[in-house]
C-alpha cells in the first residue's frame, strides 16, 4: 500500500535505510547531512540496532566497515569535508569487498566552502576520490521521494555487489520538506548479500567459484577468515602475483561494469522527438524539467535525459538519445563535472563493458553524436533557476 508522508530528503534517506534493513549506523555530524544521523539515532535503538556517533568521519566509515563484517547492513552519512576524510575507508571497502552505503548530502565549495548551500560538485570525487583503481557506484536521487527509493536501491546494490555505494543527495533535497508518496513496503525489492553454504573448511572470502561476487560470511558465524586492505588471493591473504592481481583488479571493476545496464537507471523525459537534449540530475533536474515544459509550450522540441545512477554512468542509453540530437545542454550545480563524461561519449567515447587482460572492451552499438554541446553551470551556492536553463534552450533552438 502506498504511503503519503511529509518529509525532507534526509528523513527519507533514514526511512529508506531502515526499510532496506539497515540496523547499524556510524557517523559524525555535518551540515547538511546531520538529520540523517539524528534520524538513525532516533530509530535504530527502537529496532534494537546500533547507532554510533564516532570521533570523526574516518572512524565512522571504519566502524561501519566493522559492523558490515559483523553481519549488519551498515551506513554512514556526511557532506563535503567529511566525505573527503572517508576516502581511505572507501578504498578499504572496495578492495576488501565490504557492502556499505555512504550518504553524501553535497554542499558547496572546496574545504569548508558553503556549508548550508547546494552543490553537485562531488560527482567526480564519488568516481575517483579514493586512490588506486577501484569500482565506483553512485546513485543520485532527483526528488525527496527518490531519496527514499534510491537509498533502498543503494543498499541492494551494495549487498549484491559487495561494494560501497554512494547516495549523492544535496543540500537542497536534504532540507526540502514536501509531501511524498512512497511505495508500499510490500512492493520493495530487498536484496541481501550472498552468504556461504559450503563447509567452513571449504570457505574462502574471495572465492569466485560461485560467481564474480563471492559469498561473504559474517564474523563469528563459524567461518573463520582473514580480510586485508592489501591485494590478496581468494583466501584473503596478501598476494602480489602479477597475473592474479591483474585478474582480481579487473574483477573488482568488472563486477560493476558487467551489471551497468541493470544498475544504470535513468529517466527519459519528453525525448521521443527531441532535437535538443538537456542533461540534468539530482535536484537540478526538477528545474530542468520545468524549463523543458516551458520550452515545449512555445513549440521547441526539447527533452530531458536524467541519469539516476551517476556511476556507472548510463552511457549506452545516453548514446541512443545523443545520436539523434542536434543540441545537448548539460546543466549541473558545479563548474563542470559530468559534462566531461557527456563530451567524451558524444565524441565517440563508448561505454566500457568490461576490462579484459588490460584491454578496455568497448560497446560498439552506438555511433558518435554530431550534436553541439553547451552548458548551464553554476557554483555559487544557489540552485540553477529554470529560467536560466530555458534561456539556453531558446538560445540554441
Amino acid at each position, binding site marked *: 500500500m502506498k504511503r503519503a508522508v511529509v518529509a525532507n530528503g534526509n528523513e527519507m534517506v533514514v526511512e529508506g535505510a531502515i526499510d532496506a534493513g539497515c540496523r*547499524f549506523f556510524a557517523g559524525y555530524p555535518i551540515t547538511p547531512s546531520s538529520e540523517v544521523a539524528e534520524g538513525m539515532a*532516533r*530509530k535504530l*535503538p527502537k529496532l534494537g540496532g546500533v547507532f554510533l556517533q564516532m570521533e570523526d568521519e574516518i572512524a565512522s566509515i571504519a566502524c561501519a*566497515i566493522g559492523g558490515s563484517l559483523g*553481519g549488519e547492513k551498515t551506513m554512514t552519512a556526511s557532506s563535503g569535508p567529511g566525505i573527503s576524510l572517508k576516502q581511505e575507508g572507501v578504498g*578499504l571497502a572496495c578492495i576488501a569487498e565490504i557492502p556499505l552505503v555512504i550518504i553524501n548530502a553535497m554542499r558547496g565549495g572546496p574545504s569548508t566552502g558553503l556549508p548550508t548551500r547546494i552543490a553537485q560538485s562531488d560527482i567526480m570525487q564519488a568516481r575517483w576520490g579514493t586512490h588506486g583503481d577501484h569500482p565506483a557506484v553512485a546513485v543520485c536521487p532527483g526528488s525527496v521521494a527518490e531519496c527514499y527509493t534510491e537509498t533502498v536501491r543503494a543498499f541492494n546494490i551494495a549487498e549484491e555487489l559487495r561494494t560501497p555505494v554512494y547516495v549523492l543527495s544535496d543540500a537542497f533535497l536534504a532540507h526540502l520538506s514536501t509531501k511524498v508518496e512512497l511505495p508500499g513496503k510490500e512492493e520493495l525489492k530487498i536484496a541481501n548479500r550472498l552468504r556461504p553454504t559450503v563447509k567452513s573448511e571449504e570457505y574462502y572470502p574471495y572465492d569466485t567459484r560461485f560467481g564474480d561476487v563471492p559469498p561473504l560470511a559474517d564474523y*563469528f558465524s563459524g567461518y573463520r577468515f*582473514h580480510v586485508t586492505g*592489501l591485494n590478496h588471493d581468494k583466501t584473503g591473504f596478501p598476494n602480489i602475483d602479477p597475473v592474479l592481481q591483474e585478474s582480481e583488479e579487473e574483477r573488482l571493476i568488472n563486477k560493476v561494469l558487467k551489471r551497468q545496464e541493470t544498475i544504470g537507471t535513468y529517466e527519459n523525459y519528453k525525448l521521443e522527438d527531441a532535437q535538443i537534449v538537456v542533461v540534468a540530475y539530482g535536484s537540478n533536474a526538477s528545474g530542468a524539467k520545468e524549463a523543458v515544459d516551458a520550452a515545449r509550450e512555445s513549440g521547441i522540441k526539447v527533452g530531458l535525459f536524467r541519469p539516476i545512477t551517476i556511476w556507472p554512468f548510463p552511457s549506452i542509453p545516453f548514446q541512443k538519445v545523443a545520436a539523434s540530437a542536434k543540441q545537448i545542454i548539460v546543466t549541473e550545480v558545479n563548474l563542470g563535472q559530468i559534462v566531461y563524461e557527456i563530451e567524451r561519449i558524444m565524441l565517440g567515447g563508448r561505454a566500457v563493458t568490461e576490462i579484459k587482460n588490460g584491454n578496455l572492451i568497448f560497446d560498439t552499438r552506438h555511433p558518435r553524436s554530431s550534436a553541439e554541446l553547451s552548458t548551464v553551470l553554476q557554483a555559487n551556492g544557489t540552485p540553477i533557476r529554470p529560467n536560466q536553463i530555458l534561456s539556453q534552450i531558446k538560445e540554441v533552438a
Partner: protein
Amino acid sequence: MSVKYENYLRMNKFPHYWCPGCGNGVVLKAFIQAVDELGWRNNDIGMVTGIGCSSRASGYVDFNTMHTIHGRALAVATGIKMSNPSKHVVVFAGDGDASAIGGNHLIHACRRNIDITLVIINNWIYGMTGGQYSPTTPTGTIATTMPYGNVDPDFDLASLTIGAGATFVARSSVAEPVILKNYIKKALTHKGFSVIDAFSNCHIQWGRKNKFGDPVKLVEHIKSVTVSAAKAKKMNAEELKNLFVTGVLYEDKDKKEYSESYFDMVKRARSQTKGGR
C-alpha cells in the same frame, strides 16, 4: 600443560614475516598462551590490526581477523564489537598505529570503555617503514627522520590511556614474557577497555641506529629502562626519572562498559512509546 600452538595459528602462513629475534613473536606467543589458559574458542575471537610490522599479527592467528588501514583498527573493532557484543575483540597495534595516526581513536575507545583489549607492541619506532621516529621514540635517540637525535618529547601511553578513561592498563615487556602473558590474560577477562603497553625490541630499525642492533642487548636495555611497580614504590622521584614503571597500573571494575550501556539504552528506548518518532 604445554600449549598446542597449532590450534591457534594458521600454520601455512609460516615462516612469519618478522625479522629473526623480533619482539612481535614474543608478544603474540604470550597472547596465545593467555587465550589458551582462558579456554576461549577460536570462533568467538576477533582480532583487528592496523598497518605496521606488529599489525601483521592478525594474519597468523586462526580467529576472525582483519588487517585494516593504518591507525583505524580500533574504529573497525568498535563496529565489530557493537555488532557482536558477546564476542571477544582484540586489537594489536604498533606504537605509531595506536598513538600517532590512530591517537584520536585510541582516546575515544578509552573514553567509551568499550570491551576491547588493545595490545600495543611498543617498539619505539616505525618499524615497517624503515625506522622513522614515532610518538614513543625516546627523546635524544636516532631515527631516520631524526638523524641528529630526536627532539620530540616521548609519549607515556599508559598515562595517556589511563587519563582517557581506559579501565585496565598494564605495562610489561618482551623481557618478562610470563608476566606479560598474565597481564594479557587479565586484560582479556576485564570487562571494559583494556590496554597492554608491551615494550618490544625492534633491534633492526631502532636498535641498529642506537647501538642496540643485537636483540639480546636491546632486551637488556628495555629491562634497564623499566622498573616494576613494587620496586618503584620504594624509589623517589629523582630515581624514577627516565624509568617506565611496569605492572598493572590501573584497574577500575566499576565504570560501566560501553556496549552494556548502549544496549541498556536500547531497552529503555524500546519500552518508551513516545519519542524516537
